[in-house]
């Protein structure tokens, strides 16, 4: 298995530093799930998508939410089909065969013959009990269905879990993963992202906006602008060829944040003019 290089990532539009890549490579090499934690909007899900693109893996996504359970995540029996077959067929010996099984993302990823990447998104939103359900597939690469027995998958998949850290994940889950903390990008990386995604931006402008955004993130804001928000803001500014305070709503989504931003920019300009 070949290690990924920064160039591979950059080709598909993901800019990062070597430390991140080392962790990803280690996780792939050891064949262990990767747990990515960090604030919202730092590119956790996007990293998974990019990896599936580069490594040519089929992306299977499980979006977690409160109250998610086995039926939605692993498998479910198709009751209606079972009922119908009881009524039509005389032979009802094997009602729990594979044809009556509805595969949900986890089982789908396990049994898929194509190489795949299983993305378990925002695991912290699911209940604590749900984590226990994941342990078997994370550690042993297998799922047990009482009526059918144990299904073991091939080692052809990468598993990525993301979390926004709204809840303490259990130690049992953490133990089985490799940990990566993803923070907001620095100026260098933000610049590269802007150059890559925004059409018609010059390098000078990219540096200018990148440092402005770093400055904004450093203020004592209620909601720190995410990477996507900053890109959209710059996109619009480049398109309309002006930077006005009216379109600030793209970047900052809180009234008191607007005020703070305007005040500090004014303060900054004043001190410059002196």
């Amino acid at each position, binding site marked *: 298995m070949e290690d990924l290089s920064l160039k591979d990532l950059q080709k598909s539009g993901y800019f990062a*530093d070597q*430390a*991140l890549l*080392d*962790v990803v490579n*280690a996780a792939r*090499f*050891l064949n*262990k799930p990767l*747990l990515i*934690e960090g604030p919202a909007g730092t590119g956790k899900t996007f990293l998974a998508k990019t990896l599936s693109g580069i490594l040519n893996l089929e992306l299977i996504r499980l979006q977690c939410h409160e109250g998610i359970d086995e039926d939605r995540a692993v498998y479910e029996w198709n*009751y*209606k089909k079972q*009922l119908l077959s009881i009524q039509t067929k005389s032979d009802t010996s094997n009602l729990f065969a594979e044809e009556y099984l509805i595969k949900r993302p986890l089982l789908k990823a396990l049994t898929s013959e194509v190489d795949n990447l299983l993305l378990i998104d925002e695991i912290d939103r699911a*209940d*604590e009990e749900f984590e226990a359900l994941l342990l078997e597939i994370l550690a042993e690469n297998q799922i047990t269905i009482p009526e059918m027995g144990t299904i073991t998958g091939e080692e052809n998949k990468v598993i990525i879990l993301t979390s926004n*850290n*709204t*809840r*303490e*994940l259990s*130690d049992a889950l*953490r*133990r089985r*993963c*490799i*940990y990566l*903390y*993803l*923070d*907001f*990008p*620095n*100026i*260098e*990386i933000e610049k590269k992202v802007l150059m890559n995604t925004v059409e018609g931006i010059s390098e*000078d402008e990219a*540096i*200018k906006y990148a*440092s*402005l955004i*770093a*400055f904004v993130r*450093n203020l*004592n*804001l*209620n909601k720190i602008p995410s990477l996507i928000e900053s890109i959209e803001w710059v996109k619009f500014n480049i398109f309309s060829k002006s930077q006005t305070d009216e379109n600030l709503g793209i970047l900052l989504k*809180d009234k*008191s944040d607007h005020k703070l931003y305007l005040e500090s920019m004014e303060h*900054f300009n004043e001190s*410059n003019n002196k």
Partner: protein
Amino acid sequence: MSLTTNELAKFSAFCKDNNFHIPVESSEIFLKYKIQKDLNSLEDSIKYLYYLLPKDYESQQTLKSLIYKYFHYVIEDLNSATFYIIDEYQNNNEKLLELLEDINLGNLEELERMSVDLIMNDIDADFTRPVSDLYWLNQIKKSKKYQEFFDMFNNLEMSNFSELTNQLNKENMQRLLDNSILEKIIEERNKQKTAYKPSELEPRTQLNEKDFLFTNQEERKLLLEQTYQLGKKLAIKYKRFIKDSNKGNLFFRRTIRKSLESGGSFEKLIFKPRIKKKPKLTILCDISGSMALNSLFGVTLLYGMVSKFKSIKAFVFIDGATEISKTLRLIKKNEIEKIFSRWGDFVKSDGHSDYQTSLQELIKIDNSEKGTLIVIGDARNNYRNISEDLIEDLDEKYKKIFWINPEQSKYWNTGDSQMKKFEEINYKTVEVRNYKQLKDFIKEIDLKKVLSL
């Protein structure tokens, strides 16, 4: 040179001494990776040690400091660059550029030399005077030399957009230098310990175990954010618990209707939501002078909980209880400190903490019955009496009482501390002086046991 297994064992023993446990399984994973990848250099090995061992952000930070202590090797974190190098520095000031590049590479010697220089030469400091370390820092900040240094940033000729980056660099530099100076001051004062310092004022290296009282501004910002998250986590725990116990009797009509989809067989049972009294949670925080910084952490915890869940009630008190749940819900996270500037609103008579009156008032205002009460306070009552009746009333009003005391337990019941009286009726009394203790407390709360009616 490579990292030998022997040395790894020594390192994990070293970690164990510093209250950081490395599981055998994790070391195994690391060794497996090391052998298969044939990591030769020591640096690489340490780097992967750091990548593969920790399982959350806090342990990552702890491990980082331990590695620095043991191997004297600085790990570059993701997005670690503290300073952004811009081209304009090259034309203007080579000395500044060198300094910034040095610090980015993890070389802090020059910074330390500067802070020692500032402490030794500029002010005639008598460190035995019983004032806080921050007082000396402010003295140094006023000195000419300190300001001259930051003029280096101001005197550069720059194009407009680099100004922002320059500003960021300057702020960062200021933070780093202040921290370094503060460290040196603490070191210096510890040398003269006999005059003033009790032993517990020694600087702790790990932030988690550092007392709230002795954190500097930057550390406090970080810890307050984490405390807010803890409050949110406790609220979510509470919310989930309530949802769990919400299932009522069978909802017959909807179950039958649902079963028609599958030809009359009951594949899914539907239950009525049970309407019952929600368990009540009340939190009370002492914000009087003796609590100092601890009350800031207390109120941040309240904020985290209240903003997430409506039926939690928050009170603060000095010499009379005031409900602030509504106020907390209206303000934003970065406005919490402003509450303390409205100190006058909470003072009802003389401004010294009075547990007797405050708790009496709380019993009157709080309309919950048989709820749970969490008190954050040091129980120092300024030599006022606490009556037996109050203790009885409290015991009757609340089913369970948790008491978080920010003082060291050996100082409880000394002087005007009345901890003993409350301890008798408390369900649990804990000492919380730092983040680690707070986290452990919240982790251990078993809401099922505590709140079930």
